[in-house]
């Protein structure tokens, strides 16, 4: 089998999920005895291709064009369709990023093919690849297989594989430029500037401890209590999406698929139910503790320690205990 990984970069910076999917791709290539190539797409990304070539790969494809400088679904679909026609992969793997969600289904459909999206794993059984993905908001998992002739497309969820398991090659993989033809008239959408809404005041990825609040915090006036706990623990305050949507905390405090992905040594979840969109952003944490009223809340699926109860009773008790040890 020929496997092609399509990596993601923006303005010369990697989307780190690319390397998680690279780890997955290497593992699949190893198990299925396949050839593995990885593509870099954009403009002026030869350096990134060179960097990628240090990984254990059979080939790096460099897809460059002036019209690929800014991402557009039309530009990327047209260029990648041509690259796929040249490289002839059987299986195309991509990280399940927001950008991939925007073009990969279209890329697959333009070839009359399907995509199994947002996979959390795979199994190789009796010569067949089975992709595992969540359904019903994580309440069930599904084994999904491809039907029909290749190429097949699959995407892996952030956090499904570990980027630090990427194998380095004994020698550099060859970098092959793939020429693509693209004209401005083919690109229907016009991307304008990329901007940040809130000034990034805090880099939550660097915090060793995070105290995170969800819907269970009920009202903005209860936030200072959680903040106090965070400070006593020597950590930062973060939140799930609904809290930031309500404006109770700025967007830069948001953890999850639309916010930051973190892996602190301690993640303390207060009143967070644990929807997948949140869990993907924190499940890599070393230790997870959760306080929630509902003992069936999915957050307990990933928690090491759990307290089922009223956070408005437990958090003050934690604060009291911590203040006691501090003063003694």
């Amino acid at each position, binding site marked *: 089998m020929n496997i092609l990984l399509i990596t993601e970069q923006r303005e010369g910076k990697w*989307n780190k999920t690319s390397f998680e999917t690279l780890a997955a791709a290497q593992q699949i290539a190893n198990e299925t005895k396949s050839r593995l190539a990885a593509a870099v797409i954009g403009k002026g990304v030869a350096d990134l291709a060179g960097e990628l070539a240090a990984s254990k790969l059979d080939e790096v494809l460099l897809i460059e064009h002036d019209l690929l400088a800014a991402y557009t*679904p039309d530009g990327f679909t047209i260029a990648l369709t041509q690259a796929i026609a040249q490289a002839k992969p059987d299986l195309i793997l991509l990280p399940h990023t*927001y950008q991939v*969600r*925007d*073009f990969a*289904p*279209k890329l*697959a*459909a333009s070839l009359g093919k*399907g*995509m199994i*999206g*947002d996979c959390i794993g795979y199994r190789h059984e009796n010569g067949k690849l089975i992709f595992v*993905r*969540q*359904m*019903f908001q*994580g309440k*069930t*998992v*599904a*084994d*999904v*297989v491809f*039907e029909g002739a290749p190429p097949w497309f699959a995407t892996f969820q952030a956090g499904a594989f570990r980027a630090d398991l990427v194998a380095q090659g004994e020698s550099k993989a060859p970098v092959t430029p793939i020429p693509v033809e693209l004209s401005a008239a083919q690109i*229907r*959408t*016009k991307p*304008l*500037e*990329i*901007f*940040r*809404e809130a000034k990034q005041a805090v880099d939550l990825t660097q915090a060793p401890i995070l105290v995170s609040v969800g819907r269970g915090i009920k009202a903005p006036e209860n936030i200072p209590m959680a903040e106090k706990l965070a400070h006593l*623990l020597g950590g930062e305050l973060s939140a799930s999406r*609904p809290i930031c*949507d309500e404006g109770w905390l700025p967007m*830069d405090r*948001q953890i999850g*698929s*639309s*916010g*930051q992905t973190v892996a602190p*040594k*301690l993640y303390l979840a207060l009143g967070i139910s644990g929807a997948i969109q949140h869990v993907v952003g924190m499940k890599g944490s*070393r230790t*997870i503790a959760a306080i929630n009223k509902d*003992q069936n809340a999915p957050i307990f699926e*990933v928690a*090491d*320690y759990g*307290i089922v*109860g*009223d956070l408005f*009773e437990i958090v003050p*008790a*934690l604060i009291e*205990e*911590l203040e006691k040890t501090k003063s003694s």
Partner: protein
Amino acid sequence: MKIVVCIKQVPAKDAPLVIADGTWIRETDIGFEMNEPDSFALEEALRLKEKHTGEVIAVSMGPERVKQTIKEALAKGADRGVHIADDKAHTLDPLGAAKSLAAAIERETPDLVLTGLQSDDHGFGQTGVLLADRLGLPHATLIMQIGGVESDHLRVKRELEAGWFQWVELPLPAVLTIQSGINKVRYATLKGIMAAKKKEIVTIARESLGVTHEPTQRIERIYVPTKTKKTEFLNGTPKEAAAKLLEKLKHEARVL
């Protein structure tokens, strides 16, 4: 402005799910509701209509029960409904579902097609993008704001990852997938519910749409996930539980 909004009916959030036939859930004895991400798309469609005038058409695919969700959309202010009837719609793969929706939507020649981000049942998250491809229209996904609506184009604010956003201009007609949380969804009023009774829902049998499709993927089985971690629950009064937690974090997990 003629706006088609795709809404899916999914099991209610608190519905107890029982796996049946290995690949789907038992549909008897559970409630169904409008897919929450689609409710944001509907709300956005209604706001666009109120601002720019026009018509909102709610399209849903599935068995007879999905008419209830179409009625809810009509009660909130959609003008008419299209029901693509298929008792086995849940067995379609993303491309098969999109082809069917596209075949029905094409007849409406809309200026704008809106969908939610993804469904709370399958969660494929592909329908909007695939619809655009099948309809031959440009698209943009994860929309947090729609602005600058002109007769032949509009501007949308896309959400990128890690707090980044981007404005994108695209010609009409177009397909947009709406990010959840873009707006505050309205409730149906009594007046709206009464008015909905007079609104039209056209039912089209899916097989009559003339869609040919070979499935690209197949769900072999669904199952309840095995826990990756074993949670240690700490009991007692709030004070006791809090003390136990700090003790565990300090001496067992050694993270404090």
